[in-house]
């Protein structure tokens, strides 16, 4: 891997890393969501330092060139990320449903109690 490429990708990894830290620091990103992004930045660095690992993986999966292995891994990674988001969305949907139901139930309860109080008042 040429030096110019190494510097370029190291730069990208560094920016990603700092961005994540900043987002967590400002509490825009929850800590439990940040590790997956930090892991992505670390993976970029590892690939720069150990390019031979990518070549080894390429022969292992039988791909023609390292670039296709890299793209394949990226797509797989993004697909898994989407799946994870779908799971989280499903959980949130169920939670929003339960909260909306509870809100409606309590509102009805409160309205009926108020009506009863009005009736009891002389």
């Amino acid at each position, binding site marked *: 891997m040429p030096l110019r490429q190494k510097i370029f990708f190291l730069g990208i990894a560094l920016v990603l890393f700092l961005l994540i830290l900043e987002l967590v620091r400002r509490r825009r990103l929850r800590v439990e969501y940040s590790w997956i992004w930090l892991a992505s930045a670390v993976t970029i660095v590892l690939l720069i330092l150990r390019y031979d690992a990518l070549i080894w993986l390429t022969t292992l999966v039988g791909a023609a060139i390292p670039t296709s292995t890299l793209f394949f891994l990226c797509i797989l990674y993004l697909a898994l990320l989407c799946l994870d988001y779908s799971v989280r969305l499903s959980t949130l949907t169920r939670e929003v449903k339960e909260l909306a139901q509870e809100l*409606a139930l309590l509102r*009805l309860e409160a309205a009926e109690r108020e009506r009863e109080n009005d009736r009891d008042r002389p």
Partner: protein
Amino acid sequence: MSAHVLVIIPAWNEATNLEAVVTELQRVRPVDDLLVVDDGSTDATAATAQRLGCRVLELPLHLGYGAAIQAGIKHGLRRGYPVVVTFDGDGQHDPADVAPLVAAVDAGADLVLGSRYEAPGAYRGTQVRQAGRHLFAQLVRALTGFRLTDPTSGLKALGHRGQTLFALARFPDRFPDADALVLAGRARLRVEERPACMRPSRNRHSMHDGRAIAYIFNMLFSLLAAALGREADLKV
């Protein structure tokens, strides 16, 4: 003192149909408590229900049919109604069919469905829907042993255990039909069927055949989830 039966009417933008449905129910079943669940309507559904003297459960968001009746059932459970009936707000159901369903629950059933196939002359809908119903009736029979003819019926009467099942967090909350029956079978509920004279829906946004086909695919997945789901989620 609350009544013996709570009738839940899920309604989403039904202001125009609701009056006819509610007044007919009030005339035929004067002692029942009526609860209209306003499923995030943008029209005067809630106001209409209030004016007609119904109790109104106003959901702040549109949650869909299953979640709306689930909200109503949670209310029924908290108030301790022995029987809860779900009754569509679009004029499909006949209040005269409620009595036999309630009687079946009083006689010990946990979940009773109103079936259009047990009632001669009831409206049956298009061919696609009939085929869909038949498919689900067969699947339910294969998975639970229940011999039911109309597993997608929205007219249901629920006893205490039926209500508890429908109020579970993991309950299928889009269209609780065949998948709900599979869960009922796994929870060993007593499920029965009584004749019900269905009528065509008055609602313009009632499900058309295209959506019915999408429904079939969703329901097949939901059935799979119901059949393979964890036993621990089914404590009734």
